[in-house]
């Protein structure tokens, strides 16, 4: 029966960062209309929560899909060190061109974590606040295999 079941490991991480929603393709007025107070000139910040879901075989010797020591170190290096207490617009190259909405942040974090060698990345869920959350599970064409 076990082989008919799928197990996923879910782990939540926290970081704080600032951003400003502003598109170079829009006029000042349009930016203000589209993004509202998220367009305020000096930016603002959030306490983000990143929920990482990994799947794979549960190792019989350890009972684990992935050792949390490995996963935590990977997420720390790939995501938290580069995003925590940073300005997403200024400090993260991906957001020089793209608007750092949490939709785009989900995709960016997925790209940074899909190469985790010990399990398959299933999806990323990011909470921008307690009331807003976003999910990205990759595109089929991307082949997010380990």
């Amino acid at each position, binding site marked *: 029966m076990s082989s008919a079941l799928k197990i996923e*490991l879910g782990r939540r991480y926290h970081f704080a960062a600032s951003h400003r929603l502003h598109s170079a393709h829009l006029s000042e007025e349009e930016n203000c209309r589209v993004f509202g107070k998220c367009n305020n000139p000096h930016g603002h910040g959030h306490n983000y929560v990143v929920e990482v879901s990994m799947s794979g075989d549960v190792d019989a010797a350890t009972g684990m899909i992935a050792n949390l020591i490995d996963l935590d170190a990977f997420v720390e290096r790939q995501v938290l060190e580069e995003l925590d207490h940073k300005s997403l617009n200024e400090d993260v190259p991906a957001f020089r061109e793209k608007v750092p909405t949490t939709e785009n942040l989900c995709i960016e974090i997925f790209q940074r974590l899909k190469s985790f060698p010990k399990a398959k990345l299933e999806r990323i869920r990011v909470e921008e606040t307690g009331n807003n959350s976003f999910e990205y599970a990759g595109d089929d064409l991307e082949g997010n295999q380990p």
Partner: protein
Amino acid sequence: MVLLTRKIEFSASHRYDNPKLSAEENRRIFGKCNNPHGHGHNYTLQVTIEGEPDPVTGMVLDLKELKEILEREVMQRMDHRHLNYEVAELAGQIPTCENIARVIWQLLEPKIKQGRLHRVRLYESPDLFADCYRNGTNGAGKS
């Protein structure tokens, strides 16, 4: 199809230790989860049932019945217990979130007579959980 989820909480102790590994290996792999006298957690279990609402009662499954199943199968077995020593279904397994979630699935699945079990999600802490569901479903309502 409609999904319904019931949440329960239980507290239990455990220790990660594989007798086939050396003391050093156990320490390296499991870290402080290998501390000799174990430790405990407040676990949160979310059980999701899928099905069509009954035309007469409007229910997928009577929540009272689900509550009784969870009490009998999970609470009486695991609440205020040591998972390594007191839960027969976990014997010989490391009581990780992954393994406990699978054991809970296997305990509940045959007991659900109306609707069917869709997902078991077990939180060991607010930042660590495991999901168990039938292969081929994504755990979010699609098959």
